[in-house]
């Protein structure tokens, strides 16, 4: 890798999806949210303050992807210490498996876990940030009052989710997120959210305690009782303060990658990277059809390992044989890749697929003190449970979708007090002992694919982060279905993969089905910061000068 080349070939983009700045950088899937983060950095906040501000802002201007009703996971790097913040949400006490069917697991009031995003952000603010709680919430309040323009993707999603929105008898989600409560908004129409603004203001004024044991908690309790949901005040009363866990850590060539332990999916990313580590840099960097086959096979095998090795987050640290993190195991797996698709793993379009590529969001932030935050948050599926807290303005998540419903011995089995299995893999890449890149992506099982290829382009081909995000990517599902932006690959690549035995699914150019990376880099061969927001979802990178 040539870090000088990585950093010097970076080009800012006019549409704001790639930017340079002197004193810090924020990247997120919304330009409004990114601007909120920059505002906070300019006001003297650190990267953690900025991350909170961006996260709150995203809950307003990207409400289909994350919000107060969801959960937040992330990596926080301060000084020479990095913490994996597990802000998982919990299944409510009354949500017994036998009371739930496939419909209620997905849509409606019963699908929700106890929202933990407010607690996670409050924890970050209290223990890592410098600015006050009201200060980091203020930009989000403003966006909620002033409104923001609906994106084409949002409009499409509203169209797609019309059914579940309208099926709910309360229509609480439809009232907020459909025009007139009935039809999708058109792209460009401005959405104002006065109820959400009021809630955020109340949160700012009364503290996060209001959400879990105060007025907001009482209102959520009443709303859930009214609508036959499971959540109650006594669930909320156990404030879901996030657990600080040790991040996972492995090398990729000359860098060290820190990422999310269970219940997140950092292991999948690290295993994929450890496997790729066994291939020649020049081979991977060369982007030949053969190398794409190896990448697809690697991603598939890593996903399979994750699927077969779920672990309880609290006892994971003591697992003696952490196979997915074993270099020997990675070498064996890499060596098992042949010229063809693995004959022992036939193509199976019906193999389990982690739902949703159009959900969850990621933000990255770095400041001039050397701090870095890499945060992934979500309400699980797009528009969550499709119902919103009455008069409070935020959607309830549908994280019961991320629980296993078949095997009571599964660590993530749907049980009261259980946590959902998360596919999030927020990551921080360290070089020469210092955070170099903060990165992450939404996209469920595509997260590790997107991030692995991004890092591969940077490290094996010395691409700038902007170039690395932009390049076409592949994803290979558990079942051997390869999705790729067919039009952006040379024909021979697509043919070659088809000949290996994969089923090919052609996606449109810059399809967000290939993830959406938000990455920030602190230059080590020059001064300043660089940031990129993936065009596949839009958004912006920006920083103070």
């Amino acid at each position, binding site marked *: 890798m040539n870090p000088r080349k990585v950093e010097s070939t970076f080009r800012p983009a006019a549409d704001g999806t790639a930017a340079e700045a002197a004193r810090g950088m924020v990247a997120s899937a919304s330009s409004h949210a990114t601007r909120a983060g920059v505002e906070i950095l300019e006001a003297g906040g650190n990267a953690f303050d900025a991350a909170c501000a961006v996260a709150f802002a995203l809950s307003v201007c990207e409400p289909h992807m994350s919000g107060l009703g969801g959960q937040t996971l992330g990596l926080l790097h301060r000084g020479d210490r990095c913490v994996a913040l597990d802000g998982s949400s919990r299944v409510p*006490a*009354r949500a*017994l*498996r036998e009371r739930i069917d496939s419909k209620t697991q997905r849509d409606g009031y019963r699908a929700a876990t106890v929202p933990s995003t407010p607690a996670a952000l409050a924890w970050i603010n209290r*223990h890592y940030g410098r600015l006050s709680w009201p200060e980091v919430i203020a930009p989000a309040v403003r966006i909620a009052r002033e409104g923001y323009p609906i994106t084409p993707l949002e409009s499409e999603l509203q169209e797609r989710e019309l059914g579940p929105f309208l099926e709910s008898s309360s229509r609480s989600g439809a009232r907020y997120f459909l025009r007139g409560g009935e039809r999708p908004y058109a792209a460009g129409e401005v959405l104002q959210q006065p109820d959400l603004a009021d809630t955020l203001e109340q949160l700012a004024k009364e503290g996060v305690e209001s959400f*879990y*044991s105060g007025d907001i908690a009482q209102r959520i309790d009443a709303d859930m009782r009214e609508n036959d949901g499971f959540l109650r*005040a*006594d*669930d909320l*009363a*156990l*404030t879901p*303060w996030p*657990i*600080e866990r040790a991040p996972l850590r492995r090398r990729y060539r000359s860098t060290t990658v820190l990422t999310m332990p269970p219940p997140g999916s950092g292991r999948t990313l690290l295993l994929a990277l450890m496997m790729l580590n066994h291939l020649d840099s020049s081979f991977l960097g060369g982007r030949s059809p053969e190398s794409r086959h190896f990448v697809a096979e690697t991603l598939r095998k890593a996903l399979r390992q994750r699927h077969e090795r779920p672990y309880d987050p*609290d*006892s994971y*640290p*003591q697992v*003696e044989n952490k196979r997915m993190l074993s270099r020997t195991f990675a070498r064996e797996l890499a060596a098992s890749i042949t010229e063809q698709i693995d004959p022992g793993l036939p193509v199976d379009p019906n193999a389990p697929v982690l739902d949703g590529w159009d959900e969850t969001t990621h933000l990255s932030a770095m400041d001039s003190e050397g701090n870095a935050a890499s945060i992934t948050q979500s309400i699980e599926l797009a528009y969550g449970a499709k119902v919103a807290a009455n008069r409070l303005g935020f959607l309830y998540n549908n994280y019961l979708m991320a629980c296993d419903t078949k*095997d*009571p*011995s599964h*660590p993530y*089995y749907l*049980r*009261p*007090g*259980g946590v959902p299995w998360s596919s999030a893999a927020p990551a921080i890449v360290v070089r020469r002992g210092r955070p170099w890149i903060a990165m992450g992506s939404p996209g469920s099982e595509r997260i590790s694919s997107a991030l692995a290829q991004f890092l591969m382009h940077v490290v094996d081909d010395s691409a700038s982060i902007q170039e690395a995000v932009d390049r076409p990517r592949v994803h290979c599902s558990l079942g051997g279905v390869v999705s790729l932006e067919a039009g952006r690959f040379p024909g021979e690549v697509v043919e070659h993969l088809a000949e290996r035995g994969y089923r090919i699914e052609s996606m449109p150019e810059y399809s967000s089905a290939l993830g959406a990376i938000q990455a920030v880099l602190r230059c080590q061969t020059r001064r300043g910061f660089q940031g990129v927001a993936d065009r596949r979802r839009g958004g912006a990178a920006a920083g103070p000068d």
Partner: protein
Amino acid sequence: MRPLDRPRRVDTDLLELGDRRLHHPQRLAASRGGMVSTAHYRATEAGVEVLEAGGNAIDAAAAAAFALGVCEPAASGLGGQTMMLIHLADEQRTLALDGSSRAPNRATLDTLSRADLSRGYRATTVPSTPAVLDYARRTWGRRPLAQVLEPAIRVAEEGFTISGLQHALTRRELPHLKGRSAATLFLKAGATPLPVGALFRQEALAATLRRLAEHGVEDFYNGQIARTIDEDMVRNDGLLRLEDLARIPWPIERPPLAARFGPYRVFTFPPPGAGRTLVEMLNIVEQLPGRLGDPDTPAGAVALAQTIRQAFRDRRDRPFDPQFYAQIPEKRMLSRDHARQIARGIARGTDLRGETTHLSVMDGEGNVVALTQSIELIYGAAVVTPELGFLYNDYLSAFETEDPSHPYYLRPNAVPWASVAPTIVFRRRRPWAAMGSPGSERIAPAVLQVLLRLHAGRPPLDAVAAPRLHCFLDGVVALEASRMRDDIPAALERAGFEVEKRDPYSFFLGCVQLVVREPDGFVGVADSRRDGSAGGPRV
């Protein structure tokens, strides 16, 4: 008559006066090869047997713990939970093994009555003792499960002799046992306590233990035993189900609490256990002026009572989720500054404002185990599945029921608050003593008082036998008054406490099993307050 035919003349002056039928457990033992001390002599024998067969301290502790479930069934067993503090010699590592049991999926307060929480089929959490003991064995032990279970199986099959203490406890608990399924197993004809000296065999329990030996502890959680539990629970309107058991309660490894006390480094149990209480009390005592440091004097006894009370106040006010505890920035109960404030208050005379079993084991390699396990109340929930033979715990009574924001509020899959404080003390960087006690809130103060006596130079047996007191949050002090200076109760009353005089060797005031490493071997002490013994391998 030939000389051999003449009856021997018995010199009555030489006869002991006590009942010859009673067994007197060996309270004090010495061995070069290792040491086991438990609250029942048959369990101690089990541990020693395993050490002699080449097992290490972890194997021996597991064997003794399984055996205690047989010969001290009212205190612990397969239906309960187990906590262990372990020092591994080869890794030079001390760790706390949190074997907390969880409330079942169906355990919400709106479906439970007050009575449900302490007796009956609805009171139980998911038993973790089988999983915890086997986890320790397979991770750090050397002997196969079948060998570790063997002594327990034998005691269940051959029977053990009911002691005076056991008979008295059963008589006391009779109202709770009568009419419940435990009566069918633990009472004579389901109605009266077994007499002192009776041989008590437990066929059903033996069969269950044999099944574990053959099929592994997994059978308890997802095999035939699990199905039997599930069926019985459904039949009796209990809450436990196959779904609960299927999530096997493997223990969580946690860092122990560590504190300095005099020349020692004290390791003890973090939340959900009560090690913080012990640490805070040690910190306070260490900063008391010398004239208040001897608990056998009136001034010292008053200072001790105040120390205990304040530490418990702090514990009540600062409950923490075990998973969350490590990241608390300010650990007040462990702070020496905080303890200094309290010590000053005590010195100025300012007014400041549960049954379990314990065993300790050391082996010749330097491994140490301090293990405390329980089914919560004496006889637990007082119910059994008759064909399985073990009592279900009643740990639902150990949850908070008023305040939903409390970390130990009763909700499905939450863990109960525990008062255990298994403790390992290091001196000159090597394990020196292992100790612990049953007795609910009296546990930490009992450990404290034994450690104080050891520190004052008393020999191990004396340190354990020395009279003890306990101070409740409400200011009542229970003490073994007849063995203390008779001016101590008055001093306590003058200081504002209410005095409750207890038996000379009160069952109420804990039961400390102590093992100490001396330069030329090991010494073990079992508290005479129960039926325990100490023993070491013959070398």
